[in-house]
């Protein structure tokens, strides 16, 4: 009997090849998308789960005033936590920074983590060699990741005790971390003891400062219910100590679970770039939508095909089959088809994964465990039942007397169901089309809007304050170099320093501004236009910014401000020139007056998702004075790689142990939109697939409907209808459904997109054309799909269909 079930299922599949193939391909696409997105979502949610104590580890973030939370904390925080709060079992610090590694003849720029000795008690990476208990004991310890080990020593084993010179000091390899399969938020950099970090500080006293935030602090707390109370206690403790040492009025902490930090893209200064929880949710929803679309296809085509099987039901019932037996038969057929589809979908996913990994810059593997196989099996059964139950119950409920007379075809509820399903499908498709159009346009807009600087032909080199003056003299002699400068921060990177500007006539009015200490030629090198006034110049000795800590009033230096600040102060660019403003008075510094000499256009730092803050630029007399960090070089357009090599030679000639690590400004700019680009492409891909599934379903249904109307078509033709008229008639039956789908879906899309766009500071106006395009597009898709079938049916010779009485 069971064997017969399978045989009948197979024969039915085979008999109606077109319908079966359409059902199958729709299911394959739907299930494959679902699996793929679920893999991605699982991957995004699995960050840090590899660490044994992950559940008990928390990151301490600071919130100062109304700013976004930040992961950077004072170096002394971890010590304070363990000694003053008994609920905190342990704490550890992780700082990051760039180092120069000298090995054999080369000097390489590397990133490094600087960690406490108990690092591995928190983050229990597996070591290929070395001992986690002792690896960080010596001040010259060095732990490498597998890839870095291979880079320097061409192997990942047998290198314990090998030496590398880091920032001019010899270090000895004490451990090699094995590459892990599950993702985590620790950058794969060198790992050094935190003492090495202290030696980079300008002063050892900074270790004890409450307002110098230079490390990420992790704490182990095994009592989850204590978190709320602990947050309050630690916040008060921190606030008491940090108050007065900085300009911030409130200082709070957030205790954030380690398992949450990857998808937290609000908190700044994370060690690795975060993912986006919103996007993960959106993709989950899309994956379900596509699965629903595929199920709908199946249901739709099955009930349609059921018309042809009505007779089968009648005969079986007349022969004594029970309703349950019939339900079983049809469900088994549905489940078998979905099982087959799942198998093909898994293969598809396997084939698509490398491309997907490249697109999303992740490393997802398809592994088969007992659990995942069971899940897939469950998925197949579930989809089979969801998709197959309506046809099964519908068919088994048919009255044999009716079906044998051929009366099924006029079932009103069946027609209505199929029509609603088409509306549902096209609704989802129209929704996705509008969404991706608007997302694409907004992203294009943000990327192409004027950034307030010229990103072409500029390279940014990390560090170099000590050699900059000599470097500049040699560099500008190069025929392809237009100018070079140094600055504390550069466009595409956040402004790290803030200050308070007060109008001289109203010093109680505090305006928070970003501050960027720069060297000469900054504006020329970055192509930032002066709107009024003059650039900093060596001709004016008073341009250089110097705070006099003994007599704040005696501080000197001129200011260049950006347009936002001029506007905030109520001045046009011309009016601002020669005005005096007062700086300081935030924390331990006194008030001091400075004169404005120029207004420059607004430039985006970080990226255009952030508002441009009011900014001041001050001149650093010597690169070391105001901790300038980035060297920038502007080349002539179309310069060759050789010019950069020349620059590297000059650089290394001045300091052989400082790596010349550079990035094109255009690359930094693109990188700041990488996540958005990835997610936009992913959205596009899945929108396309959703449309494909919808079109496949419509194609099947149109084929069926047309087949049912073959005779009608012939009659109309005999009565004088032209082929064009007939095609129009066949196509038109779906257009009102498609229009209805748009009417339902577009308002939903409108409200969602309105909120999404409101999240942007620089945004496009709601593009109503997207809705029109989506409606047009879905109509065109429907027309083209149905037309393929209609043309064939309408141009057939009527005699063939009329004679089949």
């Amino acid at each position, binding site marked *: 009997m069971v064997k017969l079930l399978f045989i009948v299922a197979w024969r039915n599949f085979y008999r109606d090849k077109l319908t079966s193939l359409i059902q199958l391909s729709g299911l394959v696409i739907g299930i494959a998308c679902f699996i793929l997105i679920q893999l991605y979502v699982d991957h995004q949610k699995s960050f840090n789960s590899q660490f044994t104590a992950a559940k008990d580890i928390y990151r301490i973030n600071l919130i100062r005033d109304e700013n976004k939370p930040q992961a950077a904390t004072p170096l002394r925080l971890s010590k304070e936590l363990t000694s003053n709060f008994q609920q905190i079992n342990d704490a550890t610090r992780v700082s990051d920074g760039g180092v120069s590694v000298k090995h054999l003849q080369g000097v390489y720029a590397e990133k490094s983590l600087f960690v406490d000795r108990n690092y591995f008690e928190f983050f229990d990476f597996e070591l290929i060699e070395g001992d986690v208990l002792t690896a960080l004991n010596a001040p010259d310890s060095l732990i490498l990741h597998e890839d870095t080990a291979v880079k320097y020593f061409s192997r990942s084993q047998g290198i314990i005790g090998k030496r590398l010179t880091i920032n001019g000091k010899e270090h000895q390899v004490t451990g090699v971390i094995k590459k892990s399969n599950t993702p985590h938020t620790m950058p794969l950099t060198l790992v050094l003891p935190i003492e090495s970090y202290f030696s980079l500080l300008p002063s050892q006293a900074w270790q004890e400062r409450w307002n110098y935030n230079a490390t990420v602090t992790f704490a182990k707390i095994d009592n989850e219910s204590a978190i709320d109370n602990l947050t309050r206690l630690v916040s008060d403790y921190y606030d008491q100590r940090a108050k007065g040492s900085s300009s911030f009025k409130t200082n709070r902490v957030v205790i954030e679970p380690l398992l949450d930090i990857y998808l937290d893209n609000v908190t700044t200064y994370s060690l690795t770039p975060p993912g986006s929880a919103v996007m993960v949710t959106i993709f989950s929803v899309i994956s379900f939508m596509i699965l629903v679309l595929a199920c709908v296809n199946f249901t739709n085509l099955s009930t349609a095909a059921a018309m042809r099987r009505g007779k089968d039901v009648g005969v079986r019932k007349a022969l004594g089959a029970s309703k349950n037996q019939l339900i079983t038969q049809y469900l088994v057929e549905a489940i078998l088809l979905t099982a087959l589809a799942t198998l093909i979908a898994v293969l598809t996913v396997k084939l698509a994964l490398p491309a997907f990994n490249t697109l999303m810059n992740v490393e997802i593997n398809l592994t088969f465990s007992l659990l995942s196989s069971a899940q897939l099996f469950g998925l197949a059964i579930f989809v089979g039942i969801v998709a197959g139950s309506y046809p099964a119950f519908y068919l088994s409920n048919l009255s044999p007397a009716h079906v044998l007379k051929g009366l099924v075809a*006029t079932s009103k509820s069946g027609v209505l169901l199929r029509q609603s399903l088409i509306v549902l499908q096209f609704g989802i498709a129209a929704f996705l089309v509008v969404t991706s159009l608007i997302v694409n346009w907004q992203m294009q807009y943000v990327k192409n809007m004027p950034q307030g600087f010229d990103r072409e032909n500029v390279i940014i080199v990390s560090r170099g304050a000590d050699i900059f003056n000599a470097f500049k003299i040699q560099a500008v002699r190069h025929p392809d170099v237009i100018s070079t400068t140094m600055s504390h921060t550069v466009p595409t990177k956040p402004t790290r320093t803030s200050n308070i500007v007060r109008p001289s006539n109203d010093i109680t009015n505090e305006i928070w501004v970003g501050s960027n200490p720069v060297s000469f030629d900054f504006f020329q090198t970055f192509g930032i236009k002066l709107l009024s006034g003059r650039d900093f110049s060596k001709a004016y000795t008073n341009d250089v910014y110097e705070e006099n800590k003994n007599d704040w009033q005696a501080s000197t230096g001129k200011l260049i401000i950006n347009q936002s600040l001029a506007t905030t102060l109520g001045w046009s660019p011309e009016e601002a020139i020669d005005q005096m403003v007062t700086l300081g008075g935030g924390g331990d510094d006194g008030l001091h007056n400075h004169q404005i000499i120029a207004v420059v256009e607004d430039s985006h730092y970080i990226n255009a998702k952030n508002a441009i803050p009011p900014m001041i630029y001050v001149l650093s007399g010597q690169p070391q004075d105001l901790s300038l960090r980035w060297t920038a070089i502007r080349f002539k357009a179309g310069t060759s790689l050789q010019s950069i090599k020349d620059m590297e030679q000059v650089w290394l000639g001045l300091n052989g142990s400082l790596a010349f690590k550079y990035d094109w400004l255009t690359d930094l700019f693109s990188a700041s939109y990488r996540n958005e680009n990835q997610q936009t492409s992913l959205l596009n891909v899945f929108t396309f697939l959703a449309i494909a599934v919808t079109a496949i379903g419509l194609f099947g249904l149109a084929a069926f409907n047309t087949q049912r109307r073959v*005779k*009608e078509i012939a*009659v*109309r*033709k*005999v*009565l*004088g*209808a*032209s082929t064009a*008229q007939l095609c129009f008639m066949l196509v038109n039956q779906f257009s009102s459904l498609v229009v209805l789908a748009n009417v339902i879906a577009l308002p939903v899309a409108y409200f969602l997109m309105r909120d999404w766009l409101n999240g942007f500071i620089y945004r496009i106006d709601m593009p109503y054309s997207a809705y029109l395009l989506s409606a047009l597009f879905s109509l065109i898709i429907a027309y083209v799909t149905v037309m393929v079938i209609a043309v064939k049916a309408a141009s057939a*010779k*009527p*005699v063939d269909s*009329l*004679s089949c*009485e």
Partner: protein
Amino acid sequence: MITFNNISRSFIGDEVETVAIDNMSLTINKGEFLSILGPSGCGKSTLLNVLGMLDSIDQGGFSFIGHQVDQCSEKQRAELRKQHIGFIFQSFNLIDELTVEQNIELPLYYHKVPKEERKRLVDKVLQRVDIAHRRKHLPAKLSGGQQQRVAIARAIVTQPDLILADEPTGNLDSKNSEQVMGLLQELNQEGSTIVMVTHAPEHVCYGTRVLELLDGKVLKDESVQQETLAADLTEVACG
């Protein structure tokens, strides 16, 4: 009106070639009511399809009111069909989703007749076939005889020069059959040319001429004498 000059039509199946019309010549004049009789497979339906230009011929000449149909393109044939021919089928072939009057209106719509004119013509023809009281009904609600009257109304609403009827009484009981045949006869007497394929010899007497086919050839071709009608009818009915 219609002239066949040595026409042939055969169908090639998997193994055998079936000759449906074998080198046939025939002239049909305006105003005739021609009944075609013959056993199944003798070529009746093929002949009717060829006449209605639903099917093409393999060879021979076919002229229709001055047009050389065998030289015409598919499109021209469709145009001729639209302008001059009305069809009546055994299974009525009404469109289930349309009401009686919508079914009748359909060919006028395809002829691009203006709306007012369509209404007038439909009204007239509804009266003519005596089905006006059912004009808003769907075909499924009508009896077989009523459905066939609607189909006849639809065939004549464009005032075609030629009406082709393929076993118009095949699905009807004798009472309804007589009504339908009476209607056709009246149409003929009002001037329509009718060609009818039938299985029922007793219906021959409603026409003016009878053609008997066998194996794609004309076996017998004679006029029906109205005075022999009664005798024939009795003979056939009794025989």
